[in-house]
């Protein structure tokens, strides 16, 4: 199988910057979009037409997903990390108090989420395979699987064989963000550790899909490089995964770097308008892709976006290992922008005439646990 090849960003700048209002209007009339149409929707001209994009995005989302938002929460199991990524709170260079949950402690965190009503849980860790490896994740999945509809992971990239093991243990999906598709920038910000290998990371969603994972999540940080270009390559990656792994569901997350986070100043910060344009553009490009809006974003923004494109919301998230059992604990990966608990977020979703859905999968789909 041929690998996904990322073009040089310079190759498609005119596609992103030449479209006119008329071009955008034409794309909004189309049902099947070409990748060039996605570029049109990411153009500055389209940025001036957000209400029109919103209408189209909302109509597609309503038709394909209905009036529902799926709820999930992350469980951070470890802040140990071997990588040196200049923008990340867990970076090996950062002198923070590291913590890794024992299996018992992780189970306590997960049980708290189950009691709060969550059935979809995302297990997150820093990338330190010697700490949180396949054996740890598989055992945690086996122990907790029957209490959750779906268990996904956002940990270090693994081999296909490892993903097979985890799928058998009950892991449903894998999220792995390229952070930036801009190879030059990638090399500048990932200074050490396994993560410095751009290609190994890029091929990770394919390895997870190949291993049978039901869903792969992709994304790019907004702030490291030009967001329009990142968005276009994200769309290419999405389309490539669709074509090669047609049995696998794909979702996209939008980790937007906030200037206030820690000491690192993102070189090309993106605002809410840019995030909104990217999200609408991807929805109009791919009607069925799951779009995730996490608690990185603020309450006001998340409330406003209900029904316009996103299909999955987290709630009550804590990004420090052990933070659900011990709310006073420090050592977050990043500070969240929306501090409401599940019930409060659900109430806002209902106010917008949508149904917050906590269970939309089932342990029965997978065997081996």
């Amino acid at each position, binding site marked *: 199988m041929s690998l996904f090849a990322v073009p040089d960003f310079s190759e498609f700048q005119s596609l992103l910057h030449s479209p006119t209002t008329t071009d955008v209007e034409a794309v909004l009339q189309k049902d099947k979009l070409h990748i060039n149409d996605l570029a049109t929707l990411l153009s500055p001209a389209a940025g001036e037409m957000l209400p029109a994009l919103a209408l189209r995005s909302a109509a597609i989302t309503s038709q394909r997903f209905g009036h*529902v938002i799926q709820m999930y929460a992350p469980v951070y199991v470890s802040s140990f990390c071997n990588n040196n990524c200049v923008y990340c709170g867990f970076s090996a260079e950062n002198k923070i108090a590291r913590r890794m949950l024992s299996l018992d402690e992780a189970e306590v965190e997960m049980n708290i989420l189950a009691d709060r009503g969550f059935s979809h849980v995302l297990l997150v860790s820093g990338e330190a395979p010697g700490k949180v490896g396949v054996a740890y994740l598989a055992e945690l999945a086996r122990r907790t699987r029957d209490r959750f509809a779906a268990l996904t992971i956002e940990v270090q990239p693994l081999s296909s064989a490892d993903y097979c093991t985890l799928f058998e243990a009950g892991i449903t999906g894998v999220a792995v963000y390229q952070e930036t598709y801009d190879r030059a920038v990638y090399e500048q910000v990932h200074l050490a550790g396994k993560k410095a290998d751009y290609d190994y990371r890029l091929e990770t969603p394919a390895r997870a899909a190949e291993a049978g994972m039901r869903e792969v999540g992709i994304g790019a940080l907004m702030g490291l490089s030009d967001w329009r270009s990142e968005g276009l390559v994200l769309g290419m990656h999405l389309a490539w995964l669709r074509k090669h792994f047609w049995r696998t569901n794909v979702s996209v997350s939008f980790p937007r770097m906030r200037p206030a986070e820690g000491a690192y100043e993102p070189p090309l910060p993106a605002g809410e308008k840019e995030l909104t344009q990217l999200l609408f553009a991807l929805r109009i490009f791919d009607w069925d892709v799951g779009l995730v809006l996490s608690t990185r974003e603020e309450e006001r923004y998340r409330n406003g976006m209900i029904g316009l494109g996103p299909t999955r919301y987290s709630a009550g998230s804590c990004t420090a290992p052990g933070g659900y059992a011990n709310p006073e604990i420090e050592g977050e990966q990043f500070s969240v922008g929306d501090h409401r608990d599940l019930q409060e977020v659900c109430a806002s979703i209902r106010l917008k005439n949508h149904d917050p859905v906590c269970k939309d999968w089932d342990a029965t789909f997978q065997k081996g646990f």
Partner: protein
Amino acid sequence: MLKIADKTFRSRLFGGTGKFSSSAVMNEALASSGAEMVTVALRRVDLEDPDDDIMSVLDRERYWFLPNTAGARNAEEAIRLAHLARAVGGTNWLKLEVTPDPRTLLPDPVETLKATEILVKEGFIVLPYMNADPILSLRLQDAGAATVMPLGAPIGTNQGILMRSMIEIIIEQAQVPVVVDAGLGAPSHAAAAMEMGADAVLVNTAIAVAGDPVAMGRAFGLAVEAGRMAYEAVLGASGKHAAPSSPEVGLEFLK
């Protein structure tokens, strides 16, 4: 009356439970539609939880509970879900959906037939969702399916009966009820399916995402009744050529 396996239904409209803005709206829309059979995705409900948001609202005295295997990507997964439905949900009725492509949700004919053969032998009443393929329809019927459920158009697209020619053949050949499932976007589509001689239709998205799902449920209920009535009344022939109602064709010379 519509008869499936040993059960009769007055309503020929089957409802769904997905995509509604709330369980309350779902319940009202189902009630106004007059549906008696309602399908529920097993992935979406927790049959062991008495407070489950859908199951606690759905009146099982009023609606015949038809669990479905949406999300299953092969026969094995669908069968496992069927066993769950029988063990915990207390029913051996199953809307079989094997949809390995999460994007189009089109049914896998090979795995659907395989699962039908196995589940029928295990005593399930199997209502398989299928592409509008007449030969597959016959194969499923031979395997013991209680109905066949060809799609009118890709699910969730609201495009109506795009597969008309194939569905006409399926209806003509079938010995089990034919339920047109998926793609019906407007009451007129449902009426058209019934006029063609479909025994029933299943509608979810078009009701759930309508501006007023309760009114749309009622509209579909009426359309299905009208379409069935028209079918039973036998429609006049249609054709491309004009047919005057008092023809003067010049046959006066005949003795």
